[in-house]
């Protein structure tokens, strides 16, 4: 992909389209309104001008400078009909009629035609008409423009109001069109926003328009490459962990053999230390494997089988019973015996349970209690839940959010451990759509981890 210059404001496709569509559209509409206005004035003037010319010629026929009295009378009559008139001689001197009228402009006297123009008379806008009379005289006639203005305003109104409506409708249409047109992009955004953080499956481009498809293809290729590199990383961790197991097995076996032969004494103690160290390393290797195995993108795609959480949890607790007894910890299970359907991967759930129980057993002092409780929430609260509770030292509330981080260990923690156990729990829970919470144990003492699995309507039928 080509580099794009860094921009503070991200470029909005919609703003861009609106700018490019609306600016020319509005300019065009403005132009058309102005043209309409000019046409309106032109149109409204023409009939009035014809009438005015008619009346002016009629008046001119009744004027005769040799008979001033009759001419004055004709002008006075015209005045009564709303037409002001005046006669000027060849030198432009006022001869007869309204003295307020301006003398004719020479360019209006070039021929026998009537010449019309607008002029300001005092404070009134008038339509002035100039007509040549015999013997170099000229008639000036003025008519108020009031009626013409009314008409031109009406015509203008008839043009502009539809224009404004047209602009509004066009704007709305463009807006809706853009919204509809950009819908595939919005769909793509929602599709991306909705997917879980670890979902690297290809995006569906079947409904995408041809312009968007190349982007989806590129994104899918990127996702595929990302998936490959994540898978490579995961495989590396898994392979490394597997490769480490054989040397650890050799180390453990040799140390065991040697300590059998060493008998009591410092050598025996040293060998026991070596054994303990080797076991801790093995545990870390197993946890790394579990973590690699439970990378959510691997499981998110598989719907998993329907399992009975009660059975899985019971088997896990049974596995840990000897260890708990050896540490003088009372490990128990509390459930009402019914099937608790969850959809998932048994090996992954074993990882989750092993780490929760291991954690509880490890951090609870001798004489303490660890209880695995099970139930089904139902309603809107989710499906099957499991709660591993101990009465050990507990985790301060302010640190509870941190416990699921990889390699995080509680400050001052002296128990051997990797800080991976609860990260595995979190990963497995995530890949099963389950919720993990840390609370205080019963009566506020100790710690309780609660894992709530999603409710599956389809699983309800399998409940006994």
């Amino acid at each position, binding site marked *: 992909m080509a580099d794009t210059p860094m921009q503070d404001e991200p470029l909005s496709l919609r703003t861009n389209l609106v700018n490019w569509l609306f600016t020319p559209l509005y300019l065009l509409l403005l132009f058309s309104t102005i043209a309409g206005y000019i046409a309106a004035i032109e149109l409204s003037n023409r009939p009035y001008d014809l009438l005015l010319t008619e009346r002016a010629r009629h008046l001119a026929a009744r004027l005769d400078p040799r008979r001033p009295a009759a001419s004055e009378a004709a002008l006075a009559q015209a005045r009564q009909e709303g037409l002001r008139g005046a006669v000027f001689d060849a030198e432009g001197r006022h001869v007869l009629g309204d003295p307020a009228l301006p003398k004719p402009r020479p360019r209006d006297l070039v021929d026998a035609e009537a010449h019309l123009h607008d002029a300001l008379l005092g404070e009134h806008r008038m339509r002035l008409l100039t007509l040549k009379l015999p013997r170099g005289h000229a008639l000036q006639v003025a008519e108020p423009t009031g009626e013409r203005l009314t008409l031109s305003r009406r015509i203008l109104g008839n043009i502009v109001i539809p224009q404004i409506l047209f602009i509004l409708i066009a704007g709305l249409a463009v807006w809706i069109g853009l919204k509809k047109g950009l819908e595939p992009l919005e769909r793509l955004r929602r599709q991306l926003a909705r997917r879980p953080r670890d979902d690297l499956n290809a995006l569906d481009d079947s409904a995408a328009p041809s312009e968007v498809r190349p982007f989806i293809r590129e994104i899918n290729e990127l996702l595929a490459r990302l998936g490959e590199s994540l898978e490579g990383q995961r495989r590396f961790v898994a392979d490394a962990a*597997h*490769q480490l*197991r*054989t*040397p*650890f*097995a*050799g*180390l*453990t*076996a*040799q140390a*065991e*053999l040697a300590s*059998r032969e060493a008998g009591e004494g410092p050598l025996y103690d040293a060998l026991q230390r070596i054994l303990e160290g*080797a076991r801790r390393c*093995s545990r870390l290797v197993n946890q790394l*494997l579990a973590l690699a195995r439970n990378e959510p993108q691997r499981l998110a795609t598989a719907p998993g089988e329907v399992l009975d959480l009660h059975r899985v949890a*019971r*088997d896990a*607790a*049974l*596995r840990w*019973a*000897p260890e708990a*007894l050896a540490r003088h910890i*009372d*490990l*128990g*299970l*509390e*459930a009402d015996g019914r099937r608790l359907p969850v959809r998932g991967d*048994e*090996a992954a759930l074993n990882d989750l349970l092993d780490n929760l129980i291991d954690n509880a057993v490890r951090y609870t002092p001798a004489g303490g209690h660890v*209880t*695995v409780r099970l139930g089904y929430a139902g309603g809107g609260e989710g499906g099957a839940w499991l709660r591993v509770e101990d009465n050990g030292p507990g985790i301060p509330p302010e640190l509870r959010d941190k416990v699921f981080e990889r390699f995080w260990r509680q400050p001052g923690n002296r128990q051997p451990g990797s800080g991976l156990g609860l990260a595995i729990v979190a990963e497995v829970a995530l890949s099963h759509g389950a919720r993990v919470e840390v609370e205080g144990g019963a009566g506020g003492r100790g710690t309780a981890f609660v894992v709530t699995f999603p409710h599956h309507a389809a699983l309800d039928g399998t409940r006994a």
Partner: protein
Amino acid sequence: MRLLIVEDDEVLADSLVRAMRGLGYATDHAGDGELALAMLRDGGFDLAILDLGLPRLDGLEVLRQLRGLRLATPVLLLTARDRVEDRVRGLDLGADDYLTKPFSLAELEARVRALLRRGQGGQPLLCCGPLCFDTTGRRASLDGQPLELSSRELSVLETMLLRQGKAVSKEALVESLCGYGEEVTHNAIEVYVHRLRKKLEPAGVAIRTLRGLGYLMDKA
């Protein structure tokens, strides 16, 4: 008893050979799959401990060819992989048991003993400290003295002895009694365990109750 250890990691192989010789078994070692197959084909081994990741010939392939030759030598698989599919595949190909690395020697030794016993047509005697149970005669004894137990108590005892040191769920005990044709409740199990405990505890055999889970039999 003659054993063959097939393992390419020298440190691990050495410890396995020494451990098995320590148990009194004549033990040979093969460091790759082809050699192992050749040695097993010659016969004379009562058990093979077979690593899956081997040079030249993969462990599963050794197993497949071995069974293809209709050789029934018991095989205990060792593997660094712990995926269920691997396990199932190994067992499908005719492995008798399966152990994931790393393991404790004690665990390996117990499995080897169990396989060798099975090769000899089952094990007549299950013991835990002073307690012994004769599986063929279905008789229990404590310090050599016969123990008076009902047949149901004997079944419960057998199930727990088979898994001594490990937890046994109440469900497993219920299943062990299913052959009697009547419904067995969890309460009934508690009664049998209570009776057994009264007889065994004074002799130093403990049956520990695992709250809500089941029981664990152990030397006290």
